[in-house]
């Protein structure tokens, strides 16, 4: 055999041996790999890799919702009063951390201006207020000198963000609003802008700011001409018109403490104080104050009383601090409760009962009269008679254990549109007529919770607003006044 052939044969056999060994190794390796246990991939979300502002905002919102849900596990606040300072507190740390990580990639000098509103929110949540301001300045600088409407819209967006982000940025909002008010807005616009700031500060629990801004509102109102007072802009200001804007500002300046001090002397003194200030700042007659403060509370009448012995009594009870609460049942079904008897959506309705329960627990001598005009329905019960309806309401309210409560139900007169329409048209119940004062104050507004009146021991109406802390102060003052010898004006 030639040498060449032999060498080639050896070489070939070596190659075959190598190839076979490689195959065995690969086979073993692959079977070993197949037996590797499945490991769950890392699904941790790295939000710093998010590339758009929308994704960041959604991620931060998810973290925030998660934190809220987590908080609910420990405390369900449905029976507790709302905390006015809550909007001024910082968000939970994980929310700010999420915003910080996600927003790191966005530079306020180069970010797209179309993203300004969303990015501003993220900067504020991430505590990068300077960047938020820089972005807003860039956005405002991009507006041409003729773009007045656009400028106002951008500023409005920024104000809205400052007043809705947590914690609220009242300083920044004030800076923008004041700059606009002083930058050529007419007096009515300035008044509206100041009122907006005052309202936001009040809702955020910043009383010193709300009081300071309220003075600006009153000052502008004081300078209005009679034409301006009669203008559409004034009568449509706020939700109820310019006079009530002035009244709210006046209330803010006076403060519940001053009113309480006045109430300690007499109810008439407090009412006169408010009427005088109303007249002074709105240029209206003192009697035109659109709230029945200091008016005599009529005695409640009723066809059905719970407890039944209450039918022989006078309510509001003479000699007692009383609350008269009109139960507006016109939208009980749907707005207040759903079909399930396990409804948790009923907080909106039952918050009233929790509030009254807190009051009755703190002031055991309080006389509470719930006033009902029947509507011919109660949830999904077959259409009840007035007596049955009153009974159903009693059964519903009774388990909330509001001490000192009586329920008066009156069969409300009604008529029906002719068939085939057939709609029921309710007439005002006698009690609601008695508790409606002038054209502007109705006990049954028909859009929610009805009217509520705080009545003193002499039967005079003290309060109709029911800010929880102020009301507690009023009742305290009335009780102290009684101990000190009663209403000095009535002596």
């Amino acid at each position, binding site marked *: 055999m030639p040498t060449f052939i032999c060498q080639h044969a050896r070489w070939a056999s070596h190659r075959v041996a190598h190839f076979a060994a490689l195959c065995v190794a690969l086979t073993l390796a692959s079977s070993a790999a197949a037996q590797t246990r499945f490991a769950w991939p890392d699904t941790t979300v790295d939000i710093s890799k998010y590339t758009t502002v929308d994704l960041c905002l959604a991620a931060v919102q998810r973290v925030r919702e998660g934190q809220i*849900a*987590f908080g*609910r*596990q420990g405390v*369900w606040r449905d029976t507790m009063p709302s905390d006015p300072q809550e909007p001024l507190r910082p968000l939970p740390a994980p929310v700010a951390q999420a915003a910080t990580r996600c927003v790191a990639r966005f530079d306020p000098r180069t970010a797209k201006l179309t993203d300004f509103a969303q990015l501003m929110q993220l900067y504020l949540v991430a505590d990068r207020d300077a960047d938020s301001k820089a972005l807003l300045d860039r956005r405002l600088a991009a507006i041409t000198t003729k773009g007045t409407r656009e400028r106002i819209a951008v500023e409005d967006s920024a104000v809205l963000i400052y007043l809705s982000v947590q914690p609220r940025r009242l300083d920044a909002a004030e800076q923008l609003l004041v700059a606009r008010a002083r930058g050529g807005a007419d007096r009515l616009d300035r008044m509206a802008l100041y009122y907006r700031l005052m309202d936001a500060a009040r809702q955020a629990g910043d009383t010193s700011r709300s009081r300071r801004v309220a003075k600006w509102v009153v000052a502008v109102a004081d300078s209005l001409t009679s034409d301006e007072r009669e203008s559409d802009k004034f009568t449509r200001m706020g939700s109820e018109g310019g006079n009530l804007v002035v009244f709210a500002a006046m209330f803010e300046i006076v403060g519940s403490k001053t009113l309480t001090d006045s109430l300690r002397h007499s109810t008439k003194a407090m009412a006169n104080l408010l009427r005088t200030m109303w007249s002074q700042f709105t240029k209206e007659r003192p009697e035109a104050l659109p709230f029945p403060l200091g008016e005599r509370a009529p005695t409640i009448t009723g066809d059905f009383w719970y407890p039944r012995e209450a039918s022989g009594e006078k309510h509001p009870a003479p000699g007692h601090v009383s609350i008269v609460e009109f139960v507006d049942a*016109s*939208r009980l*079904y*749907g707005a207040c*409760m759903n*079909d*399930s*008897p*396990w*409804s*948790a959506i*009923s907080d909106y309705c*039952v918050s009233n009962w929790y509030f009254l329960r807190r009051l009755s627990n703190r002031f055991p001598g309080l006389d509470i009269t719930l006033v009902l005009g029947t*509507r*011919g*329905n*109660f*949830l*999904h*019960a*077959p*259409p009840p008679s007035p007596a049955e309806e009153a009974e*159903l309401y009693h*059964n*519903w*309210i*009774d*388990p*909330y254990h509001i001490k000192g409560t009586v329920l008066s139900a009156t069969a409300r007169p009604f008529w029906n*549109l*002719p*068939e*085939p*329409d*057939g*709609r*029921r*048209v*309710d007439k005002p119940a006698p009690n609601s007529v008695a508790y409606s004062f002038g054209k502007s104050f109705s006990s049954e*507004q*028909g*859009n929610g919770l009805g009217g509520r009146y705080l009545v003193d021991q002499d039967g005079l109406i003290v309060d109709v607003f029911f800010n929880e802390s102020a009301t507690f102060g009023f009742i305290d003052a009335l009780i102290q006044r009684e101990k000190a010898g009663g209403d000095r004006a009535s002596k």
Partner: protein
Amino acid sequence: MKIRTTSSGTARGRRAEPKRLLADEERILTKEECEAIARRIFAFARGGGETQVQIGSWTSGELRWARNRVSLASERRDVQIEIHRLVPDKGAGQASTNQFDDESLESAVRSAERNAAAEHRPMRPTPGLPAWPIGTWPQTAIWSDSTYNLSTETRGEVARSVIEPAEAKGYLSAGYIEAHAGTTMRVSSERPAGPYAVVDVPYSKWTQAQCSMTVRDQQGSGSGWSGLSSYDWQSIDPATLGARAIQKCEASRNPVVLEPGRYTVILEPQAVANLMQVIVASMGRIDAESGGGPWTLAVDDAVQIGPQPVWRTKLGLKVIDERITIDHDPFDPRLGVLPQPWMEPLTFFDKGVLMNLEYTRDYAITYLDKNAPRRGMWGYRMSGGTTSVDEMIASTQRGLLVTRFSDIRNLDGGSLLSTGLTRDGLWLIEHGKISKAVKNLRFTESPLFVLNSIEQLGVPVPVFRPVRNAYEQGIPLTPAIVPPLKARDFSFTSTIDAI
């Protein structure tokens, strides 16, 4: 009912095989089986509260063909069990399964309870509220053994019988046959053995069948369609439907273009039902009393309900031709209505006068001192006359005969002005005779205008109005019994190319 279950000795960590298998001979659940499943679910609940169970079962056999060849023949069935747990101090949670062995049901109940706990919204009963009223259900029987028993082989034979004549003539046919049957039941652990409240649904069963087909020529110049749906397969005659589709295809070949404009139209029943759907969707009373839709009249400043003035409606006013009465009868199985405790025979239009509009229980309670919603015009009968379509044609000097409409969209809620297309056969009538096929047209017209421009009415007949899986999804069926009609001045606004 036989239930095949596997042993519970599966290795831990391995996913168990599905254990819910219906025996072949039974395709839907009986009342006793549903009640037994509900009882077992109630027993698995932990932590108190209420359990609500909805149990549905259905079977569906279908056959589809296109270009003269069957493309799909199926026989499907399923069970759906939806469990709602309302757990005190936790929340409300829901879970679904289609397996009903003990292990699967318990697992689903636990899942619903986990979902309730995850909701983080503690619940507690609102005290002192009245119980749900007890309901009385009308006895309806939308059940047909012939529909339930329609086999795959029979459906194949039916398809063959309608494909062969079309193929013999060189046409292309496409169509669909379906036989559907199902059951539904919804009960609560608060009322496990009845009497049932109005929110419960006692066991009920139903069938639905449909057959429809399109025949076209090879050149695509002519198209004929026919179809019918009913709870009862016996009332559907596929041979007649097939012959009608072929005849319409032949007659609609080589259409001419016609100038759009106002024409007298003869609408076949299917076209009437297509057009009426716009009215069906407009029958909400709350909309009418909010100033929207066609049935609003005007604001009545003299009357207030709460702080708002009242919108008067057209209830009680004559709004359409006095020859038209449209009603609904829950006891008529042709209208395909599952029993509900508040249902009653109802007239929507009585001799042209608007008599009833749809409203919810919420509305009824708040405004009418009633405790029952009112059904909308879902499943209705429209009165007619005695004139046949042939007689309508014979009495028409110049007009159009419409087979059906498609793609109808409402353009204006107040007038119900709508637009849509004619399809599958449109013919010009001249001097009392069909003179030629016409290319399809787009119409822009209000059905209210049509119902006020009626010249002649024919005998009402059921039409093709199927809604797939309606009961499972909670969508009411809209079967209709309508007449052909002849109306003047129907507005066509453009020509379209589709055949």
